[in-house]
């Protein structure tokens, strides 16, 4: 790789491109944060101001008066629980799809993946009516279970590929020593599949954290999640942009920190998915 001809012109071009990419990715985020530190009058100033005295008033208001804090906690509980559940249910299934031979395997795999593609609008109302009949509206458990519809497929998809990339000889060796399938799965394959599990977990967490449609239809006060809360500031009467951006920042920051920490895994896991 060191043989790469690093002429100064192509080096400059590479630096310039990277700076553009960084700017392109970071600028909207920067703008969101700065707007959240403006008063309403400042936020509506035309042309927009770049230098100003920041205020944290928006954060104080949304966190402690408007109840955004509670919705963030809800989001966290829901996202963590549904991710854990999806991995617990999805891993054995992925293992079975990768290792066992049985009739209809292809169709089953396809059915799992299809669930990831169903638009939530298709399920929103029937789910509302069913959940209402069960008396489970406005409950976090409901969201945790429903988010499995898109989290299970992603776990199964990524982890099936992951298990398949683990040499089958390891299984056979263990099997000769009399280990059960369950033992092989638990002691040999799961530890080796950790990168894939991590990636699917990250994706499941991000998807659940960001979900809006089900949260809008199925929650009211108790189980309201943060994205549903952000949207509820959008009253055509008065758009408090500072507050909206403060809430948005609060929603994005946790998932961002999580994603940044995990970003190494992310790329490695995506690599894994690409190995065929």
């Amino acid at each position, binding site marked *: 790789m060191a043989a790469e001809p690093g002429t100064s012109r192509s080096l400059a071009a*590479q630096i310039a491109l990277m700076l553009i990419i*960084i700017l392109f*990715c970071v600028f909207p985020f920067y703008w969101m944060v700065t707007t959240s530190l403006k008063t309403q009058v400042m936020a509506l100033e035309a042309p927009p101001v770049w230098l100003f005295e920041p205020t944290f008033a928006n954060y104080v208001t949304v966190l402690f008066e408007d109840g955004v804090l509670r919705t963030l906690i809800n989001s966290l509980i829901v996202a963590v629980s549904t991710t854990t559940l999806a991995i617990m249910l999805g891993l054995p299934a992925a293992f079975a799809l990768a290792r066992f031979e049985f009739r209809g395997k292809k169709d089953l795999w*396809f059915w799992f993946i299809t669930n990831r593609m169903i638009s939530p609008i*298709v399920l929103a109302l029937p789910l509302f009516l069913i959940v209402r009949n069960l008396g489970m509206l406005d409950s976090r458990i409901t969201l945790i279970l429903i988010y499995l*519809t898109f989290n299970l497929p992603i776990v199964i998809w990524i982890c099936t590929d992951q298990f398949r990339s683990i040499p089958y000889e390891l299984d056979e060796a263990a099997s000769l020593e009399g280990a059960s399938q369950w033992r092989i799965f638990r002691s040999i394959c799961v530890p080796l599949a950790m990168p894939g599990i991590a990636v699917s977990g990250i994706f499941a967490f991000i998807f659940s954290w960001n979900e809006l449609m089900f949260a809008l239809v199925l929650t009211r006060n108790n189980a309201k999640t943060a994205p549903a809360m*952000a949207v509820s500031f959008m009253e055509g009467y008065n758009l408090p942009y500072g507050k909206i*951006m403060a809430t948005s920042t609060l*929603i994005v920051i946790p998932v961002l920190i999580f994603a940044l920490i995990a970003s190494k895994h992310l790329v490695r896991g995506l690599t894994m998915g*690409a190995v065929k």
Partner: protein
Amino acid sequence: MPATTSRSTIFAFLGPAVISLAVIGIVPLLYAFYTSLYFFNLTKLKNARFIWFENYGSVLTDPVFWEAMGRTFRLLLISLPLQIALGLVIALVLHRPGLGFLRVLTRLSLVLPMATTYAVVGLLGQVMFNQKFGVVNQLIGFLGVEPVNWIGDPFNAFAMIIFLDVWQWTPFVALVLLAGLTTVPGEVEEAARLETKNWWTILRHVQLPFLMPGLVAILILRTADTLKLFDMVFTLTRGGPGSSTELISLMIQRVGFRAFDQGVASAQAIILLIITIILAQLYIKLLYKEV
């Protein structure tokens, strides 16, 4: 090849996932299908009655439905190639050796758009693209461009949606492709570089085969996600002005939860589902060799 396993073992592994997904995923679908055969308006439940496939007839002949569908595919056909082209450029830039720190920084910043809540992207769009106090118009003003009416003009509003979709998803595409590039064996790539300096030749003949699985995954995921796209557009334009950004998910939401015609909305949803499944089958049959 894996050996045959006893049925009970297979069931023990698959059962929990299959059963839970069936209960949560299939039961509501059946319910939606059942609803789609009824005149079923939430505000007129007294008039609810079985009408066979009448709802499907009216959806299939409704030009507004097909316009929304067309708009959705237009978005896909414009933004997906852009995302792949830009993503490829970014992946190639990041794949070049050297500049370690800056590369890490770039890779980290790519995570930002991906992780941003979709609904927040729309809210942010409202702030940044506002004709008067939006920063986008200020920035293009520095280049001497007159303020653009982004949100209020049908053409511009659609362009804005494309822009934000590209902003959010190009990094994902870039990371997947970057991952693909790193799977190219070092010696193969080096040998190729000794033969030619033309990056296009290397890309086409050496790297592309390794990128294919990632590209297929991108194709499948982006198609599904565009058909599902709701949050960002809902918070940004709500489908307006007029119907210029009313994608299929927004339309179904409007019919089902604002006009409360759940019968028609369910029929629309079922038709959307069928289209999604056909597309997914097609992609997987044609492109996905696994399983």
